[in-house]
C-alpha cells in the first residue's frame, strides 16, 4: 500500500500493565503506585513514632502478604475475563477442611495441608467446569458457590474454631532473616506469576483469552481450558491463604474468609488488574496490597472510627477506578482516530 506515512502513528501509546505480549515493567500506572506508596510510607514514618519499629513492619508485611494472596486469587479470574465471588467462601471452607483433618482426624500437617490445598483447587475446578460447560456467567456460578460454601462451613463447623498442633504455626508466625515466612512465600508466588504471564505459553494464553475470547478461540487457543485453569489457580491461592491464616492464628477459624471478597477486588483493582480481562501486573498487585494495608494502618493510627472503615475502602476503590479511567481517556485521545469501516449492507 502506498499511504505508508499517513498510516504510521507518530507515537506508540504506553501500555498499561501486562497485556498479552507486553514487555515493560514500569509505566505511568506503576509509577503512580510507587509514588502513592512512598508518600503514605513517609507520612506514617514521620507522624507515628511506632511505625518504623520492627514489630509494626513485621505485622504489616505479613498482612500485605495475605492481601497479595487473596488478590491473586481474584486477579487470575479477572485476567481471563471472569471473576470469582467465592474466594472468601473457598477460604472459609478450606479452613474447615483443614480443621477437620488436623483436629478431628488427627492427620499430620504434612497430609492435612495438601488435603486442604487440594480442596481449594478442586472447588476452583468445579467453578471453572460449571462456567465453561454450562456456558454461564462466572458471576452467577461463583455467587451461588459462595453461598453453598458459606452454608456448608457453618453447618459443618457449627461456628467453632478447630485446634491446630503447635508445629503447624511455623509458617504463619515465624520469620526468615527477620522477614515473615508468609511474606517470603507470597513474594515468591508473585514472582512466579510475573514469570508465568510474561514468558510462558500458558500465561500468555490466559491473557489472550481475557483480551479477546473470540479471537483467542478462533486462533486455536482452548479458551474453555484456560478458564478452568484460571479458576483452579484461584481456588488454590484462596486455599493457600486460608492455610497460612490458620497457621498465623494458631487455630482454624471458620469465619476466616468472610472479609476477603471486598479485599480481593480492592487490591486487584488498585493494582491495575483489568476488570474486563487480559491485563495483570504482579508488581501492581504487590503495590496495591501495600498501599491498602498502609491506609488501613493509617486509619488506625488516626484513631478513625472503625465503623466507618468500609466507607474508606469503598472510596479508595472508586478512586483507583476513576484515576485509571481518566488516564485511559487521556491516552485514547492521543490515539489516531480509528478508521471507520463502511456500513456493511445487510
Amino acid at each position, binding site marked *: *500500500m*502506498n*499511504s*505508508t506515512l499517513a*498510516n*504510521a*502513528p507518530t507515537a*506508540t*501509546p504506553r*501500555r498499561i500493565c501486562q*497485556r*498479552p*505480549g*507486553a*514487555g515493560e515493567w514500569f509505566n505511568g500506572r506503576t509509577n503512580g503506585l510507587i509514588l502513592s506508596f512512598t508518600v503514605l510510607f513517609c507520612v506514617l514514618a514521620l507522624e507515628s513514632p511506632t511505625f518504623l519499629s520492627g514489630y509494626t513492619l513485621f505485622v504489616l508485611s505479613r498482612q500485605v502478604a495475605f492481601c497479595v494472596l487473596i488478590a491473586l486469587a481474584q486477579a487470575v479470574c479477572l485476567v481471563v475475563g471472569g471473576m470469582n465471588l467465592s474466594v472468601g467462601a473457598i477460604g472459609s471452607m478450606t479452613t474447615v477442611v483443614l480443621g477437620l483433618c488436623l483436629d478431628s482426624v488427627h492427620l499430620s500437617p504434612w497430609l492435612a495441608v495438601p488435603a486442604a490445598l487440594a480442596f481449594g483447587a478442586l472447588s476452583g475446578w468445579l467453578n471453572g467446569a460449571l462456567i465453561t460447560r454450562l456456558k454461564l456467567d462466572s458471576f452467577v456460578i461463583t455467587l451461588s458457590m459462595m453461598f453453598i460454601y458459606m452454608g456448608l462451613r457453618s453447618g459443618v463447623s457449627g461456628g467453632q474454631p478447630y485446634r491446630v498442633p503447635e508445629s503447624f504455626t511455623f509458617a504463619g508466625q515465624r520469620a526468615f532473616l527477620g522477614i515473615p515466612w508468609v511474606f517470603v512465600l507470597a513474594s515468591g508466588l508473585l514472582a512466579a506469576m510475573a*514469570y508465568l504471564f510474561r*514468558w*510462558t*505459553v500458558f500465561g*500468555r*494464553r490466559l*491473557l*489472550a483469552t481475557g*483480551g*479477546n475470547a*473470540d*479471537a*483467542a*478461540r*478462533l*486462533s*486455536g*487457543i*482452548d479458551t474453555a481450558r484456560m478458564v478452568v485453569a484460571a479458576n483452579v489457580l484461584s481456588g488454590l491461592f484462596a486455599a493457600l491463604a486460608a492455610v497460612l491464616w490458620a497457621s498465623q492464628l494458631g487455630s482454624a477459624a471458620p469465619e476466616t474468609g468472610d472479609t476477603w471478597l471486598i479485599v480481593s477486588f480492592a487490591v486487584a483493582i488498585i493494582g491495575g488488574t483489568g476488570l474486563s480481562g*487480559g*491485563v495483570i501486573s504482579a508488581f501492581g498487585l504487590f503495590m496495591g496490597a501495600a498501599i491498602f494495608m498502609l491506609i488501613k494502618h493509617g486509619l488506625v493510627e488516626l484513631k478513625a472510627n472503625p465503623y466507618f472503615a468500609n466507607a474508606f475502602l469503598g472510596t479508595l476503590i472508586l478512586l483507583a477506578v476513576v484515576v485509571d479511567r481518566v488516564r485511559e481517556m487521556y491516552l485514547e485521545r492521543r*490515539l*489516531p482516530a*480509528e*478508521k*471507520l*469501516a*463502511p*456500513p*456493511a*449492507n*445487510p
Partner: protein
Amino acid sequence: MTPLLAVRGLSKSFPGVQALANVSLEFNRGTIHGLVGENGAGKSTLIKLVTGLETPDRGEIRLDGQPVRFRNWREAQARGIALVGQEIQVVPESSITENVLLDRLATRGPLRRVDWPAMNREAERFVRSVGLDLPVTTPVKGLSAGQKQLVRIAKTLAARARLVFLDEPTSSLTEHEAGQLLGLLRELRSQGVTVLYVSHKLEEVFAVCDEVSVLRDGQHVGTRAVAGLTKAELVAAMIGREAREERLGRLPVDRGCELLRAERLTRRGKVSEVSFALHRGEILGFYGLVGSGRTETARLLIGDDCPDSGAVFVRGRQIALHSVRDSLRRCRMGYVTENRKEEGLFLAASVGTNIALTVWDRMVQRWTRRISPTAEREVGQRHVAALDIKCAGLDEPAGNLSGGNQQKICLAKWLAADCDILLIDEPTVGVDIGAKEHLHRLIWELAAQQGKAIILISSDMPEIIKLASRILVFRDQRIAGEVPDVDAPGRTYADISAAIGRYLN
C-alpha cells in the same frame, strides 16, 4: 402529483469509501418501491440518511415537496416515517400492547396512571389489522420471529406512518410468515401507505413491488416498473459493472493433489448438503449473499461448529474436528475471520503477539519453559517483511494499524503456523483501495507461488472473479451452482458475472 418522498443528489462518504454518490430517487404515494443491490451497494446508507440516523454530505431530501433535514430519528418519526429493520427489535418482557404503543402510553386521572383497558383496546385494532390473532396481553418474548415482525409493523401503523421502510424484514422469517407479511404490505398499500422495501430476495420484490430501483457501488443504476421486467434484467443491473479490474493470470492448480474435501456437509438451519473439493494451488471462491451459508460452511470446516451430518476429508483422510485448535494442530488449516476487530485480533496486544500466538508452543525453551523472545521476534519480523505490514515496530499495538495492515496480521498468524489450507472470509471489507490491491496480489501469490489451497469467501464480485479459479455460488444455505475455469484465458468479466447471476435467481 408530487412524490411523497424525493431525494436529489444525495451523497455520503465514510473514511475511504464513497457509500452513496449523487443518488436521486422518487417514491410515489401508495406504492411499494423495491430497493435492491449487492452488499455494500448503499441501500442501508440511503435508509439511514432518509430516516435521520446519518446526515448526508450533500443533496436534499423532500417530503411532500418540502425540503426536510432530520437531525435524528425522532424527527423523522414525527413526520410519519417508520422503519422496520432486519433484526427484530422488540421489548421481550413486555406485552404486545406495550410494544405496539410503547411511545404513546395513554394515561388518565390525576396520578397519570396508565390506562391499560383503553390501551389494550387501541392496540387490539392495530394488531388485528396486521393479521395477528393473539391476546394483546401476551408477552412478546414467546412469539415466533414472524409474529414479532408483525408486532413491529402494528407499531408503525399505530404511529400513523405514511412512509414505511422495511430493511430485509423477512430475513429471519419462515416462508409462510414471509408470505403473510407480503400480503400485509399489499393491504398497507391499499390504505395509502407508501412502502420502501429493501430485500435480497428478488422473488419477493417481483411478488409485491410496483417499482424497483437498483443501487450499485453507491450509485443509482436505474428505476423501472416491475411489470414487464425480467429477473435476468434485474440481476444484470445489480451486478453488471464493467470489468475494470485486470486479471492476474491462470493459477497452476494441482488437480492431482486434493487437500480438502467436504461431502454433503449439513448443519440444520445453517448449511445443507455442501460438497466440494479443494486442490493445491487453487483459490476456490465462495460467492453469495450474507447468510447464504458461506461463513457457516467455513466454521464447520475449521471445527468451530459441528456438522449434523456429512464428512470432511483433509489430505485424503476423514477427520472430525472439534475446535480451531484441532484444525490448526492436526490439519494445518487456518481461518481468517470476516470481522478482524471482533474475532481476529487482540487490538491492545502488540503486532508481534498477534502474529506469533499460533506458534508460541513451538518456541518454548527447554529448561526455563519460557517463550524464546528471539524466536518470537524472528517470526514477527519475517512476516512483517514478507507481507509488507506497515507498523512502527513489533511492539506497536495492533489496534493502531490501518484496516489493510490489520488484515495482513490476521493472515500472517496462519502463515507463521505453516498452514497450507487457508479459509479467508471477506478479506477486504473496510480496507482502502490501495491496500485492497495489495491484499489481492498477496492472496493470489500465496496460491500461485507457494501452492496454498485457499477458500475465498466474498460478497464482492470483482474481487472473487479476479482471484478465484473456480467459484461456488451459495444460495439458501446450499451450493446453487459452480462456475469453473474462471481464470481461463478468454473468459470475460461479463461472461462470468452472468454465469454467477444465473445461479443467484
